[in-house]
């Protein structure tokens, strides 16, 4: 079975009509950070009706290759030992669609079959981490995923789930259901990440809590799980994945105590076409530093469990 070469499987889960809390963008950033830490990473996107991973990595036009024995995932970048960067590849239904606007209108059984196929028929190379990005909800995809993993994964291979939420009560109310799903299905919860907590005005550096604040932390306490950190909204990150523009910040911008202001030269440089890899540009993003800490926590938790 094709998950044999994978060391740790991490599920990226969020529940709800509260999709759009940033599961996919957190998955993306976690993958980039793990890769920057020298690990080889794979991403499996099982959001069948709304795959976002291909767009976030700017590889929408990529296609999956069929090889004897299964599908070859789409490579994002290969390993580079000099700066200590691990390889990154991903698999998504988006790569299998003919037109990017095509709707995938599937009922349960078909989704179940697809999820199963994604888990068994993708030929992952040696991976340290496989991140699985899920759609919102606790339905077909999630049940199939839990079912297949329970049946097929090696003991100790499934490290657990990172649960993403936004701070407002309407979102945490739904994410709590997802935590209960994990409890019931026996999936370990690695921790909670609070996304979109606060927005720093690019003009005056005033931080506004657009979707209030602290909901994720309170929820983590309530369920006795680890709180991994809060991630503010950074329009520069949105720009980075939408247009590939290298993130730059006004001089003197501070996020969580780090000064991340960029020089004038960087500003002009950013406007010119920049063909370097996403991972290179991501290093300049303010969120990269926040994710370095979150990633460290995730790695510690996963490795502690594996021992």
């Amino acid at each position, binding site marked *: 079975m094709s998950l044999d070469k994978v060391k740790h499987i991490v599920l990226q889960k969020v529940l709800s009509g509260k999709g759009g809390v940033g599961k996919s963008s957190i998955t993306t950033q976690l993958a980039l950070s793990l890769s920057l830490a020298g690990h080889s990473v794979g991403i499996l996107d099982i959001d069948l009706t709304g795959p976002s991973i291909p*767009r976030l990595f700017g590889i929408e036009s990529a296609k999956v290759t069929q090889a004897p024995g299964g599908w070859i995932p789409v490579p994002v970048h290969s390993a580079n030992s000099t700066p200590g960067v691990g390889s990154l590849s991903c698999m998504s239904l988006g790569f299998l669609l003919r037109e990017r606007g095509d709707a995938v209108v599937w009922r349960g*059984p078909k989704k179940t*079959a697809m999820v199963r196929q994604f888990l068994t028929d993708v030929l992952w190379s040696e991976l340290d981490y496989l991140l699985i990005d899920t759609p*919102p909800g606790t339905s077909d995809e999630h049940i199939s995923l839990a079912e297949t993993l329970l049946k097929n994964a090696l003991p100790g291979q499934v490290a657990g789930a990172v649960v993403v939420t936004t701070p407002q009560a309407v979102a945490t109310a739904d994410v709590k259901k997802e935590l209960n799903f994990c409890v019931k299905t026996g999936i370990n919860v690695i921790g909670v990440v609070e996304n979109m907590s606060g927005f720093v005005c690019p003009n005056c550096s005033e931080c506004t809590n657009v979707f209030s604040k602290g909901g994720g932390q309170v929820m983590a306490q309530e369920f006795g799980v680890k709180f991994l950190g809060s991630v503010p909204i950074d329009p520069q990150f949105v720009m980075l994945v939408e247009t590939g523009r290298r993130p730059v910040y006004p001089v003197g911008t501070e996020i969580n105590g780090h000064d991340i202001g960029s020089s004038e030269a960087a500003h002009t440089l950013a406007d010119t076409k920049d063909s370097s890899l996403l991972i290179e540009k991501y290093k300049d993003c303010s969120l990269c530093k926040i994710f370095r800490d979150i990633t460290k926590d995730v790695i510690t938790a996963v490795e502690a469990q594996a021992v």
Partner: protein
Amino acid sequence: MAPSLEVPDNVQDVLSNPLKAAPKLVAPEPEHCPGPESETAGQADSCAGCPNQAICASAPKGPDPDIPIITARLSAIKHKVLILSGKGGVGKSTFTSLLAHAFATNDNNTVGIMDTDICGPSIPKMMGVETETIHVSGAGWSPVWVLENLAVMSVQFMLPNRDDAVIWRGPKKNGLIKQFLKDVEWGEMDFLLVDTPPGTSDEHLSVNSFLKESGVDGAVVVTTPQEVALLDVRKEIDFCRKAGIKVLGIVENMSGFVCPNCTHESQIFQATTGGGRALAKEMNVPFLGAVPLDPRICMAADYGESFFDSWPDSPACTALKSVVRRVIISCDDSGGANDNLEGSVHATKIATSGEMMIKLPVDFERGTQGCKVSSQDPLKTSPSMKDPRGTLA
């Protein structure tokens, strides 16, 4: 007794018997199964060799016998509007609840909300009725009434504990949606708003097939400005086309954020590809308007209050009102003109241009009966955005 999910299915059971909801079958449905309920069951190409073929082929064919019952039940509802979006978290439920409150400001209108998001119901929380339960009478299940003329139905009312996860596969969700339509005593209503989960799957297919007979006015598609969201919304519009649902228009939510400190407007979710407006043009559907991101909308939703009543002067409120007006007009265009509708158009017009008395949401603790509200130039009142929490709490 109120219906509830008191004994939720054993999860291990759901996991090990993935297709429990179709117990008549002797084997799991194959990947390309047309569906045991479909017209071609047992006869499609993919049925060849399936152990269920004989069972499916001999099952009663033809339209679902419940559909005429649903049609009869909903015959007194004048307008049925779906709120859709391929993307999650763009504000479908928020917009649904705001739309309902806006319609309900006219006392002559009766409005219903049906929350078909089974796995992540948000409407009860936003309406401040999270702890209610459903009552059953001879006539059917009674929805929960938020205001005298605003009713809500959601799976949340049936959960024994607030945070319980509803771990259901598709067929079971479809069954509940059917019950919401068939067994709930909606009565005479002017508007039934159907809030949906993100995606294009079971819930959407069921709502569409159950409501086809009784006639849906159309769908309002909600999006946010960034391309990652538009990508999924494009799929949703494609779905509407395939399913024959009229798209009333696109609403762009969270477009632009005005810093409460310096009033500098930033685009949190950059519309790098033109946002909802460009998508509407590309897909040739009406653009209903753009609503700015306002932390107070979120706050009002968390506290279960009506944003229209709490912050009638904010720019977001003005934008929302013009969107609501366009929704009403497009509902009107899609047929079924009636007196009440005229009334509601009129009322909304007043609300945006002058002074009127509006009813606050039922708030017995504070004993508020009604309040006087005036619509001023929204820009002049923006400094009041400073401390939303202090004023709301």
